[in-house]
Each structure stands twice: as C-alpha cells, then as structure tokens.
C-alpha cells in the first residue's frame, strides 16, 4: 500500500499547497493580461506555481517502504520565546520598556536557562540598561521607561 515515505517532503508539500491556496483565494483583482498586467497577475502565477510544486512534493513523498520522520524539536522553548516576544509587543507601548522587558526576559530565561533568580535579575538589569541607553538615550525612540 502507498504511504508517506518521506515525511519532510510531505509536510513541505502541504505547506506549499496551503500557502498557494490562500494566495489564490485572496487574489488581488484585476488580473489583467500579459501585455497589461494587473496587481493580481504575478501573485496568480505564484499561487498556481505553489499548487503545482506542493502537489508534486506530496506525490513524491508517497511510496512503499520505511517511513522517515521529521526532526523532533522540543516545543517548550518555541512557546516561551515566541510568547515572550508577543508579550513584549503587547506591553511596550502601554506599559513601558521596563515591564515589557521583564516579561520577555522571564520568558526567554525560562525557556532555556532555569537559572538562579539572582542571575535572572542581573541579566534583566543589564538588558534594561543596555536597551535604555541604545534605544531611548541614543536613538531617542518615543518610548516610556515606566508606565
């Protein structure tokens, strides 16, 4: 029976198919003609290209034999680091640099280091000082340090 032999290739194909489908579904109009292309012409070609590449990838990933797997990556760091970045983006304007950085440093430190609280505090103070100096003092971003 046919089954997914090359998991990497299968998931790549799925990604291409998905993005190609979104590109065609949300296609900007009008498309226009070859001599007078509208905003949709080039994206349409790309969307169709992705569908073709995606379908070929999925078909090529099928076969008989031993199944290869995609690489396993622990999801905890992804969650905490991306979460920290999003929290930073949410907090930076309303709550100021100090609080936004605190949440981010706690998130990224939790993802990897699980260090002593004092070490985390030192990192936090150092990062805050550096960022304040470079981005508020030197570059003069319109950011508050505190809320």
């Amino acid at each position, binding site marked *: 029976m046919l089954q997914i032999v090359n998991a990497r290739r299968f998931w790549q194909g799925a990604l291409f198919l998905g993005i190609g489908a979104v590109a065609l579904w949300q296609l900007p109009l009008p498309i226009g003609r070859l001599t007078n292309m509208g905003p949709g012409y*080039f994206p349409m070609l*790309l969307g169709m290209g992705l569908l073709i590449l995606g379908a070929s990838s999925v078909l090529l990933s099928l076969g008989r034999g031993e199944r290869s797997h*995609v690489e396993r*990556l622990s999801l905890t760091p*992804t969650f905490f*680091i991306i979460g920290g970045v999003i929290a930073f983006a949410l907090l930076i304007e309303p709550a100021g640099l100090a609080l936004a950085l605190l949440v981010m440093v706690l998130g990224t430190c939790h993802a990897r280091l699980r260090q002593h609280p004092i070490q985390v505090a030192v990192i936090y103070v150092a990062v805050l000082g550096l960022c304040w100096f470079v981005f508020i003092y030197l570059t003069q971003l319109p950011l508050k340090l505190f809320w």
Partner: protein
Amino acid sequence: MELLANLTMGFQVALTPQNLLFCLAGATVGTAVGVLPGIGPVTTIAMLIPLTFHMPAVGSLIMLAGIYYGANHAGATTSIMLNMPGEPSAVVVCLDGYPMAKKGRAGAALAMSAIASFAAGCVAFLIVASLAPALSHLALLFGPAEYFATIVMALVMTSILTDDGLLTTLGLCMIGLLLGAIGTDLTTGDSRYSFGFTALSDGIDFVAVAVGLYALTEIIEYSSTDTVRQNILFSFRGLIPSRDELRSSISPIIRGTGIGSLLGIFPGTGPMLSSFIAYAMEKRIARDPQRFGKGAIEGVVGPESAANAAAITHFIPMLTLGIPAGAAMAIMLGALQIQGIAPGPTVMTNHPALFWGVIASMWIGNLMLLVLNLPLIGVWVRLLGMPFQVLYPPIIAFSCLGVYSIHNASFDIYIAAACGVLGIVLRIMGCNPAPLILAIILEPMLEQNFRRSLILSNGDPLVFLTNPASLGILVFTVVVLVYFKARRRHVIKAVEEPA
C-alpha cells in the same frame, strides 16, 4: 590608472576617522558574535541593522560589511577551540583545527587561520576592485529580460547552498515572492494581500522577517538542544607557527584563495561550499592524505582562506547588479535601499564615494581583523568560556526593539514573531530559509522586470528564451546547478570519509 585613482578616493573615504571607527566597530562586533556558536552572521546583521538607519550611508554599509566578514572569520576560532563551528562556513575547520588544538598547537592553528584569512582577503579585495567596475558597465546594458533571468539565477542557485532539492528551493522562493508582493503594487497602486490590516499596505518589512527567520529561530533552536557548558581544555602559549607549518601552508592558501574568489562571485555557492571544496581538494592532492582529520595544517588554512575570499567576492553581484548572492547580502541590499540608494549598476556612477569607500574598507577591515585576531585572541577564547546562553535574552531584546524602531510600531514585532514560528516550521522540515529572504527582497525587481519584458515583447512569454543574453544566463544557471548538485554530494563524501 583609473582603478588607482578610484581606490585612492575609496581609501580617502574609508580612512576618515568616523568611517574607521564604524569599520572597527563592525569588525569587533562581528568577531564577538562570530565566536558564539549558533549565532550566525545573518542574525547579527539583522539584529543591528535598525541602528544603522541613523548613520550615513557609507558608514552603515562599512559597518555591516565589517560585521559580515568579522563573523565569517571568527567562526574558525570556535571550531579550533571547541570543535563546534561558530559559523556554517567553519564546519570543515573543525576537522583538522580541533585535532591540532588537542596536540597543543591551538595557538599555531589560530594564528595560521588568521594569516590565511588575511592573505585571501587581500587577493579577494583586488578582485572586487578590478572586476566590479567592469561588471557594472556590463550590467548597464541589461534590459528587463536579462535582469529577469539574472534574478531567477540568483534565486534558483540558492539551492546549491542547501541540502534541499530543487522543488523545496523553488517552493520557498515562491513563498518569499508572495510575502514580498504584500503591500502596494508599484505599478497600479492597488493594495495586495493586506487582509484588512492597514500596516500591511506598506508591505512586510524585511528586517522583521530576517529577525524572525534567523535571530529568533536560531535562539529557539539552540535552546531546544541540550548543550553542556563547554570547557576550554587547552592553553595556548605559542601563537607562532613553526617553520614547517608556515611552509606547508603557502600553497593551500593560494589554492583556497583561488577557489573561494571564483565561487564567491556566483549566487548560492559562497563561503560554505568554497570551504568544503577547498578541504576536499587539499585532501585529494596531499602526498599523505592519512594526516587529514588528525591535525593537518593544510586542512585549516585551505578552507579558511577559501571561506574568507568567498565572503569578500560575495559582494560583487550585490554591489554591481543589485542582486544579492546570499541571505546576508540580501539584508545588506535592504540596508542600501533604506538609505535611499537604488541598488544596481548605477550605484558605481551615482555614488562613487560609497562604492569605492566600501570596497576600500574591506581591505582595512581585514587588516583590523588580523590585529583583532592575533594579539587579542585570548579575549575571544575567554568569551567562549562563559555560558553564552546568558546572551540570548539581550539578543532577543535588541532584535525586538530594533524591529520596533523601524516604524515605531508593535505590528512589526508580531511579524517577526510569526516569522519565528515559520522559521521553526521550516527548521523542523529541514529547509534552509535563505531562498525565502532573497525572494522577499528581490520581488519588486523581479515583478517589474517581468512586466516590462512582456510589454516590450507584446505579450510573448517566450521572450526569455528568444533573447540571447537571457537564454545564455538561464542555460548557465541550469549547467552550474546540475554540476554543483552532482559535485556537492561527492565533495561532502570526500570530506567526511576517513582517508
């Protein structure tokens, strides 16, 4: 003589105290980040690019270039001392550099790799200086069809760089082109793929994408692997290589420089592949291949000189055609655009001070690297002894604030976070994100030239094959691609198998 006059002007620009300082800052930061395993040159450039927006154009480019070759150069230090490549291009340096360190010759290996890099840098600098003007003049003759073909070449050839098949590279290119298409259509002014967000009508900022795909992804990836803290096992007293080591290094440096200078010019090949090919070649022509993998100096200096030569000639397509040869060059091209300079063959004629200043700074930067690496090597090695995980929170904080500072908008940080997730997904699937970042930057140029070609040909889609120059470029692309795809496996096998 014209070359001499131009170089004199370039050195006058590069030697102003301000630009010297930018060059030194770039080379130092690049070296510091380069020795850290897991953080590559692209991440460093992406992280620091927002800070250069406020600098003059020449200074910002000089500093970014310094970061780039500094990072490339310093990767060898980590390879030799820890058996861990600081940069992808330093992978092969581990093979003989670490055994040399084990034998107590760490100092000699570090010194020779610095000297090899500098020698290669000098030659590559001369090649850039003499070849770039010629290519710029040639590129002025390019019509839209030729440009389209050249951009396609740059995109497709990124597949040489990676282990991925052509299917994967093409798919990633198309995803990148779609991301690049987001925003206002340059010809008609219509908004594309804004999904109701006003912030998206300006398009996606490439710095946010680069931070997500490189900085966040590299740190997440590094955090997921269990690495124990490294201990430096070796002391290195004598930096001075023995006479034997010096003598047997001369020809590998010359060969490595040749390979690297040539391969660096083409998109896709770059420092990493050059260093692999140089290593494989040294191993094949050595009188006693048995010594390789056990601390042969040729296996350190050959790849090191090839990687540095390629890192410098890598600038040629970016400076002359406005077409980046790799991910790091793509980001530098973006920096050029942010400074209000239209990349392409006109940079040399319209901004001669910038063009020659950057070229001259490459030689000065390489001289600085020699100084940074020989007497100060102890500082960098000590940097390796600290738990570098503590540097990850500052890198993330710096990247996010940098992304925020582009438009003073949190929206760009969300884009970076989304690209971080995309980067992890790509990593799990084993894809290299280089084609994607290249495609985002090249999208406007590609689409414009595609449209123009078809208007000029009255809608004949075969124009790219009937135009002799564009056909030549496309055929060349296919030939090089097939050749390197076939050779690559061969080269990697030759590097890995014990002699």
